Structures are given as structure tokens and as C-alpha cells.
């Protein structure tokens, strides 16, 4: 899949601004970005729902709008919400999608893998959010696609089922399916994705494997938890000692966090401060840079809250 110089504008707002990216076959590729970054618009252009205003989009070498007939059987799409008749039963809905394909997966197997077999006869409107979510994923997979777009596949799922879905996505990759996913959960991208594209304001701000993106950071995080509440004035003294390049956040009476240059002097300053103020650390953790830190650095924003 290849996007070249895609531009999408609505009335007064540029949703996607000269975006180019490539998705390699047989990989899991995560598209991350804050709310309104242009992820959904980009994905929907690849799925043929929108026509590129400028630039071009090729999916499996095809134009999603012009070559719709040829492309649609080859891709699977999981929408963020909805996509089923409210009165249709889980199994009935999945079977219907299966019948539209030449050589669909066994619906029973798919339902079992996604823990949907208990609600096979439940109408869609009475399914829980998590069940609707999993049916959405099942509907995307049932036609044995070469490429699947999954939008927030694990939003609102409990941890156990989230792990099941992760394993399923990894199995898809192993079986030769290309997966393009958007997610709120950075740990999800970190664990699953071969490649991560971070989008902000409709532009690509970073691309790489999770390792490439998290390596070589310039910011270190130290989290300190103490046994007794900080003496009055002590946190202020630490802030002064650390200097302006370092950010100090008092989390509560017993803990604080320091973000500063990733060198030994920050840690030494904190240790000396403990000695001077007779503060006894209960724990001192050195934060490793994760995808969340990268995301924050690049976009200056928290990732979206799930379920938004």
C-alpha cells in the first residue's frame, strides 16, 4: 500500500496535508496520532470511501475508487463503530458477510477464536461494546483478505480478550496478511507493530520500528517515592538544584517525577538532595523512553483517551 502526497481538505480545515507513506506487505503497521490528526480520513481514503483531492493512493496496486470492484474482495475493513443491522444476530451477521465472498473462513471457527460463540444468537443491539468490537473484527476477516484495516481493534476490551486479539493479529501476519491498524494504546503499537507512523495535523511526523523510534532519546525520567512526606521546601530546593533544563513534578506528598537530560548528573543531583534533606527513598525508578514519550515529544499532546 502506498500513499503519495495525499491532501484532503474540508470546508476550512486541512485534514491531511501532503502525506506520504508506504505499508510493506505481511507486516503490522500502526498509524498513531492525536484526535483529529487525520488518521481516519487517511484510512477512509485507502478504503475507497473518499476520493483523494490531491496526491494518490494505491492499495494492493489498485485505485480504491476506480478499481473498487477488484479491490473490495481483497481487503477487510473493521469500522470503529456500528456496521451491523441492530436486529441481526451475531452469527447471522457474520454468515451474511461470509456469503458475499468466494472462499470465506469458517464462521464457527472465527467466532470461537474471538469468543463470540456465547452470543451467536444475540441481536447486535444487545451485544456489549466489546462484543460488537469483536464482531467488527470478525466481519473484517471472514473474507480471507490480503490486507485488513483495523480501527481501534481493542478499544474497550478487557485485558484478557485484548491479548487474544493481539495474538490473532500476530497470527494474521504470520499467515501472510498485511495489517494496518490505528490505536489509542501505545503499548499495543509497541508490542504489535513492525512499523509505526505517527501523524499530527495531517502530516507524517515520524516513521520507524518501535525500537528505532524509542532509541536515542534525549530525555530521561526519574520517579522517586519516599517513606515520609517531603520536608517543607525540599521539592523547591531540588528544582533549583536541577536547573531550568529539567522539569520537576510533585505527584503527591510521597512521590515526585523528574524529566531531564539523559545524563548522570541529574541522577547525582537527586541522590545528593536526598542526603541533604534526609529523605529516605523507598523506590527510585529510571524511566525508559517508550512510544508514549516519543508520541508526546512529537505531538505535544497526550494520546486520545480510549472510548472517545
Amino acid at each position, binding site marked *: 500500500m502506498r500513499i503519495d502526497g495525499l491532501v484532503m481538505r474540508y470546508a476550512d480545515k486541512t485534514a491531511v496535508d501532503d502525506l506520504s507513506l508506504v505499508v510493506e506487505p505481511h507486516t503490522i503497521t500502526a498509524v498513531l496520532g492525536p484526535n483529529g490528526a487525520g488518521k481516519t480520513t487517511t484510512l477512509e481514503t485507502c478504503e*475507497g470511501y473518499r476520493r483523494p483531492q490531491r496526491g494518490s493512493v494505491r492499495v494492493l496496486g489498485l485505485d480504491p475508487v476506480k478499481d473498487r*470492484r477488484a479491490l473490495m474482495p481483497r481487503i477487510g475493513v473493521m469500522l470503529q463503530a456500528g456496521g451491523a443491522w441492530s*436486529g441481526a444476530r451475531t452469527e447471522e451477521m457474520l454468515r451474511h458477510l461470509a456469503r458475499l465472498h468466494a472462499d470465506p473462513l469458517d464462521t464457527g471457527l472465527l467466532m470461537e477464536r474471538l469468543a463470540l460463540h456465547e452470543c451467536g444468537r444475540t441481536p447486535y443491539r444487545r451485544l456489549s461494546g466489546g462484543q460488537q468490537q469483536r464482531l467488527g473484527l470478525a466481519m473484517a476477516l471472514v473474507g*480471507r483478505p490480503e490486507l485488513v484495516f483495523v480501527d481501534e481493534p481493542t478499544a474497550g476490551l478487557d485485558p484478557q480478550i485484548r491479548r487474544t486479539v493481539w495474538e490473532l493479529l500476530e497470527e494474521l501476519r504470520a499467515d*501472510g496478511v498485511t495489517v494496518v491498524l490505528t490505536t489509542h494504546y501505545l503499548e499495543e503499537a509497541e508490542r504489535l507493530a513492525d512499523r509505526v507512523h505517527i501523524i499530527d495535523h495531517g502530516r507524517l511526523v515520524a516513521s520507524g520500528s518501535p525500537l528505532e523510534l524509542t532509541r536515542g532519546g534525549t530525555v530521561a525520567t526519574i520517579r522517586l517515592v519516599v517513606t515520609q512526606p517531603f520536608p517543607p521546601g525540599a521539592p523547591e530546593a531540588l528544582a533549583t538544584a536541577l536547573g531550568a533544563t529539567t522539569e520537576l513534578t510533585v505527584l503527591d506528598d510521597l512521590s515526585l517525577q523528574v524529566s531531564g537530560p539523559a545524563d548522570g548528573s541529574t541522577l547525582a543531583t537527586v541522590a545528593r538532595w536526598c542526603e541533604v534533606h534526609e529523605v529516605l527513598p523507598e523506590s527510585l525508578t529510571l524511566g525508559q523512553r517508550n512510544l508514549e514519550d516519543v508520541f508526546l515529544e512529537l505531538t505535544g499532546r497526550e494520546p486520545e483517551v480510549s472510548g472517545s
Partner: protein
Amino acid sequence: MSAGTFAPAPGAAPLARQVLAQAGMETRLLLRNGEQLLLAVVIPLIVLVGAVSAADRIGLSFDDPTVDVLTPGVLALAVMSTAFTSLAIATGFERRYGVLKRLGTTPLSRGALLAGKVGALLIVELLQFVVLGSAGLLLGWSPDVSVVGVVPAVLLGTAAFAGLGMLVAGTLRAEATLAAANLVYLLLLAGGAVVLPASAYGGLGDVVQWLPSGALGEAMRAAFNGEVPAVEMAVLASWAVVGGAAAARWFKWE
């Protein structure tokens, strides 16, 4: 789990299988929906039995036996309820719940989707005709069926109302569609010359017979009286063209 469970093997089902699947699915959903069933069978049945058995008391009298006049009218009402009201409501909520969007990224083309919808309408209408026709026969209806009149009249009436139903569903919000489709149904039931002949409306009859409801009602009464209603069929065909073109022009998929 053996390797390769999800190995890609994409492909579209044969077109006929897709259309059949879609028609079957939509029929099942329609028959499962209580309110739609009320509109499709129960209300027409009440209208038929009620009007025939109370004709004398409510002052209905026609040149022909009452049941011979009312049964074709009730069949026209059944077509209207399914092709217009049920279709509009169902499609409105399909838009709202992202079903059309979902189907948009399956092998099902728009043409196959529409064919499936039409198939479902015709299946439901056939069931309505069996139930309502049997009720009419039990009440003493003795039709003189013109097959070349009835079949095109039903098809053209279905096309005319389906075009208008899709226009409403594709332009209004789901709730507004629900309200509008039911309101139009009630208004046409009362004043649209569906069940009662246009002549029963006095001077207004000259106007209402040009409505799709009046044209379909008159066409059905003629066709079950051994005639081929050419003028009414032309009126229905015109509505089908106008409604279909407007729906194609203004229908919003999302």
C-alpha cells in the same frame, strides 16, 4: 491451531449468490421487526376486515360488492407499506448504524445491494398478497384477475414507492425518516385513494388519482376487475422515474 488458518484467499461470491444473500437477509430482518410487520400485514388486515364488515354502518356503498372494491385497495396499501414505509425506515437506520458503510467495503456492489433490496420487497409483498388475498377470499371476494394488469401494476407501484422511500431515507436523519414515512403512510391511507376509489373523494378524486397512491389503488382495482390499467401504469412509471432519479441524485450513503 494449524498454520495458515488466515492465509489470504480473497474473492467475491458469484453475483447471484450475493443478491440472494442480501435479499434473504433483508427479508428476515423485515419479518422479524414487529412494527414493520404491523404495518405490512396487521393494519391492512384490520382495514380490510373492518371496512368490509362495517361497510353498511359507516355508509360505504359501491356499484360493485364492497369486498371486491376494498380487497384490491388493501393489496395496494400493502405494496405501499412495504415499498415505501418499511423500505424507508429500514434504509434510514442502515445509514445511521453504518450498515451501508460496512457493506461498502465488501464485494457487494451498489447494484447488487439494490437488487437485494428489491428482491426482499417482492418476497414480502408476495407473503402479504397470500395473507390478505386469502382474507379477502374468505370474506367473499371474487376477483377477475388480469395477470398482465396485476403484475406490471405491482412492479411499477413498487418501483415508484421504492424510489420515493429511498429519497426520504437518503436525505433525512433516521428519526425524521421514521416519522415522515409513517406520517405519509397514514395520510395516503386516509386521503390518497389507496383503499377507497378516487371516486369516493368527490372533486378531490381528480387530484389524488395522480398521486402514486391513487394511481396504484386505481390500477389494482382495475387489474383485479379484468382490465389493464394503462394510464395508471404510466403515472406509476413516471413517479418511478422521478423518484428514482431524485434518490440517485441526492441519496447520501453516510
